[in-house]
């Protein structure tokens, strides 16, 4: 067997990379969702100071390249704070922040698409702001948000591949390692690409299922 042949342990490397990508995606999605929704709540409750601050932060994050943000966090933050940062920590911070910014934008527009007349009606009936949020706004906004959210999540999954640049052994980095050793770029990158594709399909399918449930009330089932 030649050094450039595929070996069984390559599969382990591949699976490890896949695991790292999935874990990072899941963690940054969860954190991003929590932060982005919290920012949207600041806006819903018109919190002075904090609400414009969240809007500014989201604006900065969504209008600059993720790679630049990653370099800033990985190389810049340790210098500024005089601490050490592992590549995984840097990746977690960057991707969570970036996801949060886009979640914020989606959440705000979804909240605003709930009809004003419904909010007024609920107010007239004596519901408090948080009751209106919980019973009127949230269920409808969630249904509105799922389409854009699906697009965002599929995109953020692809964006995780950027973290291979700072040395995190994710699926893309595993591909790079295998490629260097086997010198079979066409085979390696096809397999890596297919794995990303399958994950993306899985995300889209899961989102579509949730969306169908949230739109149970509506005759409109989408195109």
């Amino acid at each position: 067997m030649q050094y450039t042949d595929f070996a069984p342990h390559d599969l382990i490397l591949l699976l490890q990379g896949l695991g790292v990508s999935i874990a990072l995606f899941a963690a940054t999605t969860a954190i991003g969702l929590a932060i982005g929704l919290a920012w949207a709540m600041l806006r819903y409750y018109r919190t002075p100071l904090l609400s414009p601050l969240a809007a500014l932060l989201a604006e900065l994050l969504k209008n600059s390249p993720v790679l630049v943000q990653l370099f800033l966090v990985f190389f810049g933050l340790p210098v500024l704070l005089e601490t050490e940062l592992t590549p995984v920590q840097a990746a977690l911070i960057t991707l969570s922040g970036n996801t949060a910014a886009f979640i914020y934008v989606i959440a705000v527009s979804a909240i605003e698409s709930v009809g004003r007349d419904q909010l007024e009606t609920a107010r007239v009936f004596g519901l408090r702001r948080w009751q209106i949020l919980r019973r009127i706004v949230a269920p409808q906004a969630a249904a509105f948000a799922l389409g854009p959210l699906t697009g965002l999540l599929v995109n953020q999954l692809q964006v995780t591949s950027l973290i291979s640049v700072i040395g995190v052994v994710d699926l893309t980095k595993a591909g790079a390692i295998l490629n260097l050793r086997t010198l079979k770029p066409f085979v390696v990158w096809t397999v890596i690409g297919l794995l990303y594709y399958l994950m993306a399909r899985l995300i889209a399918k899961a989102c579509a299922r949730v969306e169908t449930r949230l739109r149970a009330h509506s005759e409109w089932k989408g195109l």
Partner: protein
Amino acid sequence: MIHIEAVAKRFGSNTVLDGIDLRIAPGEVVSILGASGSGKSTLIRCINGLEKLDGGTISVDGHRVDDPKQLRLARRCCGTVFQLFNLYPHMTALQNVTLAPIEVLGVPRKQAEDDARALLASVGLLERADAYPGQLSGGQRQRVGICRALAMKPRYLLLDEVTSALDPEMTAEVLSILARLAASGTTMLFVTHEIEFARQISRRIVFLERGRLLADLPTAQFFAEDGGLAQPRIAQFLSKMTK
């Protein structure tokens, strides 16, 4: 008692309500007539506390609408039915009716649902209780809207052109319910273009014209030659509407 005193409301330079004085006592049915843009709906929105007053005061059973601390108590006394129904589209008819009793009054779910089913049954919609608004006709939606308002056991029912978005058949279906409510002693403030119906059920008729209260008369007197009809604007309006 709904007590409206010297109420003024402006949108920019446009004066929509100009010194409105009006009292509605428990048990009364009062209809508000007037052309589109005369301020009828704005008056209802002011009583609901949805518009900030630019002058005057409104109180409902002594609770000041223009005082944020008393507004909730004032709103608790009033039930509102809207021109475009304003049902919550993601909730079934039953959920639309039970939402406020459960969330605001703290009624146990089981009891709220029993009450709601009884209300829906009284307007002939019991078998549609689990339908979403999108699956109901306009007339059915408005009947759900009426049940939703009644579920809060309001002392005053505010009706804002509740049949304007309905065809004649659906209008009849909604009006028959309102007639029954009026006959049973429900206090109603009824903004409408249904003049003949207003004449049948109202104790008093109020006529608004460009934000001013042109007449506030007992029904018979409003339609009398030497009463409301003596005013040229009212006579003109009625002749156009009843043609």
